[in-house]
């Protein structure tokens, strides 16, 4: 059974729809990357999947039940979210921050149990942040903080991890580090990972399935090598790219008017088809 099923999802902030009749599934234990240009609705979709937003019409099913049937606590047992914006709350230590994921399991007087502590420590180990556990959140670098928030999501012990651009603002080393971390969580802990990303190349390398959202509700879902084709990428993102094969996957390098090696891109075929 698919752990996430989205059927005919419609959503818009005012009159114009952002997501139009979107349907897709996520298999249990798979890694889904959601890509697309700005404004296509990637973050919106993520917020819909964790019930931070309500759809105009259509259904979302999480682990077999409609998302509406979950109360806040029950949904938090299935889905953990790592968001993009970082709210500055500097006084808490790394350990305390990750422990917040266990808030709903605290005892009567509001303190954690030994189990909670064990889970948090495991999450810290998995994200390689145990060394900072008593440092204040504000004294970490961006990459380290991002790992802490992923640790928090891991400590929630859920089957599904939703991440909104987990590697923006990070340098190359940390970008790869995060993706390795997420892949490990998927493979070693059987988690289902859904990550919104701008980086289609890394997504191609790590994701099992890709959902490419285009403007005005168009979308494509499938394995990366099917969805990520030069034709689709250029149409959806509206740029010319240089494509090459890496191994099993392709990689895409967008080249603009003033790029040095612009001439390497073959001339555009005026009969290119629509993605859908």
């Amino acid at each position: 059974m698919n752990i996430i099923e989205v059927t005919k999802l419609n959503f818009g902030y005012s009159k114009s729809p952002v997501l139009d009749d979107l349907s897709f599934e996520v298999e249990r234990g798979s890694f889904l990357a959601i890509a697309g240009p700005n404004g296509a609705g990637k973050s919106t979709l993520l917020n819909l999947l964790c019930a931070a937003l309500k759809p105009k019409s259509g259904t979302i099913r999480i682990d077999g039940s409609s998302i509406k049937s979950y109360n806040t606590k029950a949904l938090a047992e299935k889905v953990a979210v790592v968001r993009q914006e970082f709210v500055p709350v500097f006084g808490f230590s790394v350990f305390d921050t990750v422990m917040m994921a266990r808030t709903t399991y605290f005892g009567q007087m509001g303190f954690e149990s030994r189990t909670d502590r064990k889970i948090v420590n495991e999450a810290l180990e998995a994200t390689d942040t145990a060394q900072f556990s008593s440092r204040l959140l504000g004294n970490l670098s961006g990459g380290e903080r991002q790992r802490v928030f992923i640790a928090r999501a891991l400590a929630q012990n859920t089957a599904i991890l939703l991440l909104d651009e987990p590697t923006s603002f990070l340098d190359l080393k940390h970008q790869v580090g995060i993706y390795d971390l997420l892949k490990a969580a998927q493979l070693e802990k059987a988690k289902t990972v859904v990550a919104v990303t701008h980086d289609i190349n890394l997504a191609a390398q790590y994701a099992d399935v890709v959902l490419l959202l285009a403007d005005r509700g168009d979308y494509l879902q499938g394995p990366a090598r099917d969805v990520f084709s030069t034709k689709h990428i250029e149409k959806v993102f509206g740029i010319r790219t240089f494509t090459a094969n890496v191994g099993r996957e392709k990689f895409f390098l967008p080249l603009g008017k003033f790029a040095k090696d612009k001439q390497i891109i073959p001339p555009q075929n005026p009969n290119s088809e629509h993605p859908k």
Partner: protein
Amino acid sequence: MNKSLTAKKLIVTIVLALALLVVVMFLCSLIGTESISLKKVFSSKALQGSVNPDYEIFVRVRLPRIILAAIVGAALACAGVVFQAILRNPLADPYILGISSGAGLGAIIAVLSGLNWVFWGWSPIAVFAFTGAMGTIWLVWFIGRLTGKSHITGLLLAGVVVNAFFSAVIMFLTSVAKSEQVHSTIFWLMGNMAEEDFFVLWLSAGSVVAGILTLFYISPQLNAISFGRDDARNMGVNVTAIQTIAFAAAAFITAVAVSLSGLIGFVGLIVPHGVRLVFGPDHRQMLPLSGIVGAIFLVAADTLARIIVAPAQLPVGVVTAIVGGPFFLVLLIKYTHKVGWLSK
């Protein structure tokens, strides 16, 4: 501050703080415009019919007043903690959402009405001020909800509007009142302590402690909410319910405090910041400790107010402002250096 909080550590800290509070309260009860001796207080207590001013000053004037100061200080400080947490605003104090003008309006109506009865120890001004405060909070909450999902901004704006409107009404009523009534109202609004009935103190203490306990119960959730509503919700916290409870409890204890002692400023603003600086932002610790520190602060401020311009008395609000103002300035400078609250 870097190690996590455990139940044991918290209990120890609270017990020590409480001990300090008791010591401060005791010492301050020995200070006043009249010098009294403890021996005299306790020796003649048994003799009925013979006048013992030392006993009466100690037991019937000073103690009630100091207990009241502790109750009000604790209530305002804890309310400040909670309002700063819910509104995500380091400049929030318990009066930010219109409570001050609502209570003031209730007070001036009570004064103008000339009512004289005493309801089980509560004066008309106290009852009307309490009703005014609670009514205003409800009104602001209601208006805030009308503005939709983005609750905080809606609440703050509603508070500003209601404050402005009620202040105008207060000014109007003040202008048509007799001069002694005006004097009374202004005096009450400046915040002052007078000894209250022991029954009133008993019930007020109970109410405030109950409110603080309620807030303590939801402290872990308040911690989560400080990371953002959406994040908290996705971690399983019922943000709407928690916010409502926090808001209601904080408003209630503020209304109790204001009804007894008028508008005393800066306690609800400064104490949370001070406690956070020393003990960290974990609400499980910040809440009870702010309550105790708030109590100590106000007891000390009240003692100062009683003796500094003897035989007259300064309104307590003046002392808290004089002490709190510069302290707040220091805090502001410190915070703007740290990239933190004020930067987003």
